[in-house]
């Protein structure tokens, strides 16, 4: 007899499938030094990120293509996420996996990034504020050898404030 495997896709979890965030405006415009820190940390030194002449095709220097995925930072008046670090089980990541989406409440403590599917249209530029709309496209459970695994599939759309599309993303997060 196999042991009973708990079903973590409870009515409360099922209720957030399909949840859509209101448009989330990035706290700050894209800043040149944020672009610099990003491309230096990736170790991608393409001149389009810092040399106006080399970036003529784009109308001036641009952020790396994936920059918008990280543009939604903590606002000045938001709670300090490090305030919860004294909880030994807190891993540092909010279970509302995107701003404006509800938490996915399952009692699984380990979070891993499962991967991305991107469609890319345009780089963000300094001075632009990025708008994010997110949706829990699906949440489902698979029972692996090591126990239950919950997959959270998130669709994200990134645009400029004037509605020019930057990129679309489908991200799978894994709780186990």
């Amino acid at each position, binding site marked *: 007899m196999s042991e009973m495997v708990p079903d973590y896709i409870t009515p409360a979890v099922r209720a957030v499938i399909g949840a859509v965030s209101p448009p989330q405006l990035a706290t700050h415009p894209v800043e040149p030094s*944020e672009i610099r*820190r*990003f491309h*230096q*940390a*990736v*170790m*991608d030194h*393409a*001149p*389009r990120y810092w040399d106006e*002449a*080399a*970036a*003529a*095709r*784009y109308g001036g220097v641009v952020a*790396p*293509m*994936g920059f918008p*995925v*990280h543009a939604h*930072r*903590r606002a000045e008046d938001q709670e300090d*996420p*490090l305030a919860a*670090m004294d909880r*030994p*089980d*807190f*891993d*540092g*990541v909010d279970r509302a996996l995107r701003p404006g989406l509800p938490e996915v409440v399952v009692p699984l*403590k*380990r*979070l*891993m*990034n*499962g*991967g*991305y*599917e*991107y*469609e*890319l*249209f*345009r780089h963000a530029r300094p001075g632009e504020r990025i708008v994010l709309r997110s949706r829990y496209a699906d949440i489902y459970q698979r029972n692996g050898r090591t126990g239950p695994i919950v997959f959270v599939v998130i669709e994200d759309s990134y645009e400029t404030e004037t509605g*020019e*599309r930057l990129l679309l993303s489908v991200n*799978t997060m894994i709780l186990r």
Partner: protein
Amino acid sequence: MDGTAGAIFDDVEIGQDIPTLVKGPMTTAHIMRWSAAMENWHRIHYDWKYATEHDKLPDVMVNGSWKQHVMIQLLSDWVGDTGWAWKVGFQFRGMNVPGDTLTAWGRVTGKQERGAWGVVDLDIGLRDQKGNEGTPGTARVVLPRRGGPPVPYPFDPAVLG
């Protein structure tokens, strides 16, 4: 010229390997630099005790959020400022830890003319120094044809017809 000239569709052959992109050896400092720049507070990237005892991982982890941009750079380096990396997808199946040297690679699996341009499909991946493939994926890029117009920017798939 302005920017970097990338691959030309006419020169691409199915089965061809595109230039690899090597990162590393990765260290805890590289992980910290990325995590701090992104304000990513996930403990598995900087808290060794938490990573190994709570999450039962072999070490602190190289960020998946960082690896995704390496995969995008692999393609943007190849298509330069004349083509466009249109679609990129991959799964994080393997873990990477400090000490790993990562090689991003791509191999052409298909090509077709679309409008005035060419579309090229690739398998892509990120391999560690032991040959482990941790990030399998696929990509689709748009390239100019020799003597043809550049790929329009911003990119709109509708131009391909």
